[in-house]
């Protein structure tokens, strides 16, 4: 059992949670993820570390309520426990010797961008962070990013309710055009990463993307998480989750993410019927 020690709601559908997991906390690094199960009937789902403390023995993650498991998770509070937490999984994000780098976090992707930007800055990179959200309500971690030793934070919203109005690709394009970045990293919905990759490609600026294919075990055993990168099949969980954004087949990734949409929606609808919260 992994006790929940911390829970906080960041927006209408985004939550942060901390659990006691000393062995995992000692090894966690930026860009890596964990797999968890809520209860004995639960699915294994992957979530990326948003923070951790080796000294205090906890790890945190931020999740968006999208289906049954994240829905159940959103009902748990400090004092409850998760049956399983495994990690750290995946290859840590490469943060050394990056020079000037732009980090894009779209939606809940900001949660992953946070430790990545922090690790890059700690490793000496000059980091520009671009956060994108649909509106002010959905913008997360803005204060936390402002507290990091980064060069600049640019906020973009679809409706202009915070920061500039527009998509993250607009400032990304400006930075590329001005020759102000040597490389970049995008974390967020597949479609956002796809457009970031297209933007940087024009200027030959390298881009790393953090992929989120559907997973079962997270340890290389099943191949559910396979993605096409440069025409080769890779396993997201052990070869990634970070890949060269210019080589990724995003269409396939998006298609594979939809494989269970219909049946999952049923399961969540069943659960919501019994559930007292108003999703």
């Amino acid at each position, binding site marked *: 059992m992994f006790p929940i020690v911390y829970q906080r709601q960041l927006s209408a559908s985004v939550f942060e949670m901390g659990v006691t997991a000393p062995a995992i906390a000692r090894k966690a690094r930026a860009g890596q993820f964990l797999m968890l199960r809520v209860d004995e009937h639960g699915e294994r789902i992957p979530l990326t570390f948003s923070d951790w403390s080796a000294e205090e023995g906890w790890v945190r993650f931020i999740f968006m309520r999208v289906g049954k498991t994240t829905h159940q998770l959103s009902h748990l509070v400090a004092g409850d426990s998760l049956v399983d937490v495994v990690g750290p*999984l995946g290859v840590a994000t490469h943060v050394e010797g990056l020079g000037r780098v732009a980090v894009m976090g779209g939606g809940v992707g900001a949660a992953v961008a946070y430790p990545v930007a922090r690790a890059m800055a700690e490793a000496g990179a000059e980091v520009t962070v671009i956060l994108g959200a649909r509106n002010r309500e959905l913008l997360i971690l803005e204060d936390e990013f402002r507290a990091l030793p980064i060069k600049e934070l640019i906020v973009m919203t679809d409706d202009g309710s915070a920061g500039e109005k527009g998509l993250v690709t607009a400032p990304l394009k400006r930075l590329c055009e001005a020759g102000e970045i040597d490389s970049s990293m995008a974390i967020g919905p597949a479609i956002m990463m796809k457009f970031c990759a297209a933007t940087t490609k024009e200027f030959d600026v390298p881009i790393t993307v953090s992929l989120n294919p559907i997973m079962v075990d997270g*340890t290389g055993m099943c191949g559910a998480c396979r993605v096409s990168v440069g025409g080769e*099949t890779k396993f997201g969980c052990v070869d990634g989750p970070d890949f060269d954004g210019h080589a990724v087949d995003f269409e396939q990734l998006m298609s594979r993410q939809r494989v269970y949409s219909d049946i999952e929606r049923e399961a969540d609808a069943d659960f919501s019927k019994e559930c007292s919260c108003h999703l």
Partner: protein
Amino acid sequence: MSPVEDAAAEKPRHRPSRAPRTPMPERDARERAMTFDEVGLGYTEEMAVAEANRCIQCKNPTCIEGCPVNIDIKSFIAGIIEGDYTRAIAVLKERNALPAVCGRVCPQEEQCEASCVLARKGEPVAIGRLERWLGDFDLSCDLEHRCAPVVGEPSGRRVAVVGSGPAGLACAGELRRFGHAVTVFESLHAPGGVLTYGIPEFRLPKAIVQAEIEMLEVMGVELVTDVVVGATYTLDDLLGEEGFDAVFVGNGAGLPMFLGVPGENLNGVYSANEFLTRVNLMKAYEFPTYDTPVARGRKVAVVGGGNVAMDAARTAKRLGAEEVFLVYRRSEDEMPARREEVHHAREEGIEFKMLCSPAEIVGRDGFVTGMVATRMELTEPDASGRRAPVCVLDSDFTIECDTVIIALGTRANPLLSQTTPDLEVSSRGYIVTDEDGATNKPGVFAGGDIVTGSATVILAMGAGKKAAQAIDRWLDATKRS
């Protein structure tokens, strides 16, 4: 004189029966294709005794050599003949900690039963079925009345076991007999390895695996799930900070292989590992009571000819598929699956498409709609007697299907070896060991599929047990003074 021979000497001479081999009752094929309940129903006591009585108690029991762990088959059968089941179980467990499992899944027809003298003239003694019956008999007793191997005096030494498959479990049990403290680390949330996530319920009920594991816990084996060695701890952490005196690595060969044909990443294409894991480990067949989904295909094509392919095909059928095709490159004679499994698959209505090789998987809107296959023919046998499959020109045809399951075998998962650069592995990533399971790294031993490549449950158990003995010797030799 051993107690067994002693007992035999006092009893009137055993008169073997000449009855034909006792068949084991099975669930009806039509009924069973709709449920995950076990297919084989096992012997009753009368059947077991009748079958045991067919054994002629050879002076030179050749059956024993056929068993990879050399179970004293003659003696355990003698125990059944004489009605001393407790002794029979003790004889079995002396060599095999999981008889209820091996009695079900061992390829007996190629091992012990192939070496039984009766096989030469007719039908061998059904050794596997007797083993299963005894194993089940033992498990049907309360925990405190089961046959528990004696645990040794605490040695003060600690051994870590990586992986809770048959190799790891056998190693752990044996180490307890020597009195060493044992902690088993398992990366998944449930122990058992392939016994839990691979072999389906209808062939090996999970309650049996669970009960066998409980026994190990009673023996004092500590089991820690949710730990990926190579990630949560490295091997060096275990030998350093975590304070273990030795490590046994039994992490299996769990990395699935794919065909490398176009369309393989379409939705509806699974590795057998994923398909079986979703169904067995995550209980997707009880979705939405359990949260993990699996595609319930209407027409399913399974690629491969081994036990894994049979398991996947029969599982797909049970999930409600109307048609399940087994697509294999060679002919039925070359199929590596157990005859019994092939027979069961046929009975359950699996269609065999032999001498076919997948060339492409085709789809619409991201989902599978069919598989293009090429017809094959076999060449004349070469010097080694092997007949190679070759393509028949312009013979492509399409099999309509909405799900494809690829059961081509597995390779070594590099997760652990990558984080232990000084551990010697072969060019294909398998851990290199000597005969006793010792690796090139002091204090690190290995066995099972990670050393041999995909093999069998009993071979993995044998390797785990042998390594435990080597670990015991190594601990003795390195005793802290």
